[in-house]
């Protein structure tokens, strides 16, 4: 990891918004798990078909982050660290100290991609801890644990092309509100495509977390269901990175 990426990561962990979002997620997980409900109400929560008791609770909670919420949260963070930095005149500071646009953008890409993985890991940690306090070690039995952890890992990978797309968007759109607004529109458009023309939706990375986490919820995935998604992620990631690189010198760093 480069020095600049480390410095950027240090900055992001000072961002209050991250902790605020995680705190909201903790509250949501506690509410869904029924951890703080009365003993009389708990069997009702356990009987909820969507949760399927404690074993599949971590997998169930993943649906709340894997699609729209995670994408919008990362859009805000990306816009904050690119658009807001540019507006504040911070993007040019490393350039004034002999660093290149490539180094600055690579540091941002490295930091944001790593951070998107860290967020999935943090979500997993929260969900497993709450589950443990609510149901004990039920979700830790080997096949169930492997199944849910593999889905968390796949979701983390799905953030790679998404994050690169958001970085490209933020490089061109000068304001946070535009990046978040365009991401929202893009998600709506994809939702429509996914419902109306699912065959076409398969060519987009966003299709796969939906497929793995929501459509095939609570069952293990076959290799044949995984590799097309991984291939699409790789293809899009390479394509988007090359697009960022090819446009790098035309991107305005100045406010």
């Amino acid at each position, binding site marked *: 990891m480069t020095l600049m990426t480390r410095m950027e990561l240090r900055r992001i962990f000072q961002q209050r918004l991250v902790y605020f979002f995680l705190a909201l997620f903790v509250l949501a997980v506690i509410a869904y798990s029924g951890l703080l409900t009365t003993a009389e109400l708990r069997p009702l929560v356990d009987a909820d078909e969507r949760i399927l008791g404690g074993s599949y609770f971590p997998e169930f909670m993943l649906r709340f982050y894997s699609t729209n919420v995670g994408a919008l949260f990362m859009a805000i963070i990306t816009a904050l660290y690119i658009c807001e930095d540019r507006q504040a005149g*911070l993007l040019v500071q*490393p350039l004034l*100290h002999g660093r290149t646009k490539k180094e600055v953008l690579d540091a941002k890409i490295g930091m944001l991609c790593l951070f998107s993985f860290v967020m999935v890991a943090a979500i997993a940690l929260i969900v497993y801890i709450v589950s443990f306090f609510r149901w004990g070690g039920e979700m830790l039995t080997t096949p169930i644990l492997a199944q849910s952890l593999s889905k968390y890992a796949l979701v983390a990978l799905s953030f790679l092309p998404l994050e690169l797309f958001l970085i490209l968007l933020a490089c061109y759109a000068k304001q946070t509100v535009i990046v978040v607004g365009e991401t929202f529109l893009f998600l709506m458009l994809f939702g429509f495509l996914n419902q109306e023309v699912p065959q076409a939706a398969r060519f987009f990375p966003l299709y796969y977390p939906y497929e793995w986490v929501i459509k095939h919820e609570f069952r293990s995935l076959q290799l044949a269901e995984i590799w097309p998604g991984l291939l699409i992620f790789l293809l899009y990631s390479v394509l988007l990175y090359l697009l960022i690189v090819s446009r790098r010198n035309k991107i305005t760093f100045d406010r």
Partner: protein
Amino acid sequence: MDTAISVRNLTKSYKNKPVVTDLNFEIEKGSILGLLGPNGAGKTTTLKMLTNLIGKTTGDILIDGISLESNPKQALRLVGASLDTPAFYNEFTAFENLAYIAKLHDQISREKLLALLELVGLSEETTKKVKHYSLGMKQRLALARALVHDPKLIILDEPANGLDPQGMRKLYQLIRTLAEQKVTFIISSHQLSDMEHLCTDVLILNKGKCLIHGKTKELIQSDNSLIQLAFCDQQKGRSWLRGLATVEILQESEADFSVWLKEISFDAFLKQLVTSGHVIQKLSIRQKSLEDRFIELTEGWD
């Protein structure tokens, strides 16, 4: 001349519209160059080209003999800059902001950063988050940041913005001290009277073109076209002056006239005055300020 920066035929155009045209200048090490000009003159574009933030259309920039185009990293190691309103990581303290930038360079000690904060008068505010700083404090911190890697050339855009008179005095004193140590400065500012006293050299830009460049003292002293004149008979004197097409009365009072010799030399005017037979009570050459020269040059341009 031991040249700190050499700019040759520097031009910048946006969509074939020139913003800076054929700019040429050299500055000696330890000089303080005031880059002056009205709004939209091309000052900021020039500063951004000198710091490689924007590319030039044509021309060369050599910093201590190193080409900014072919060796940008090496050339920029010699440059410290603070452009626009100073920008900082607001959630960090002053010390952390400096440390962040210091990490981009090799081996800059904690002691050095603390010394820099002391130099700009922020030693008691090192642990305060920058978001609580006033604009004046940010200006001083920006200067400290520009000095982090011991640059030989410092480029400052409106460094006195937001500073109180004491702050300005301290800043100018600091600039002079560093210039004595052979650090070269390029300062863009609208504070013309301050620039007159601070800068050893001046370059005035208008509409992207260099109107004048030279030593500040020479630019001010070289001009004797502005005179103060008083006649024994002011009435007759006024009529005589008004009859001359080569001069213009800029100001007149009961006591005297301020006259601009616009198309006649001082010697030729003096000859005319003597032959006119008027009795003169007072005649003096009025020293032009930098502001006078600036207004004269930039207004006359159109």
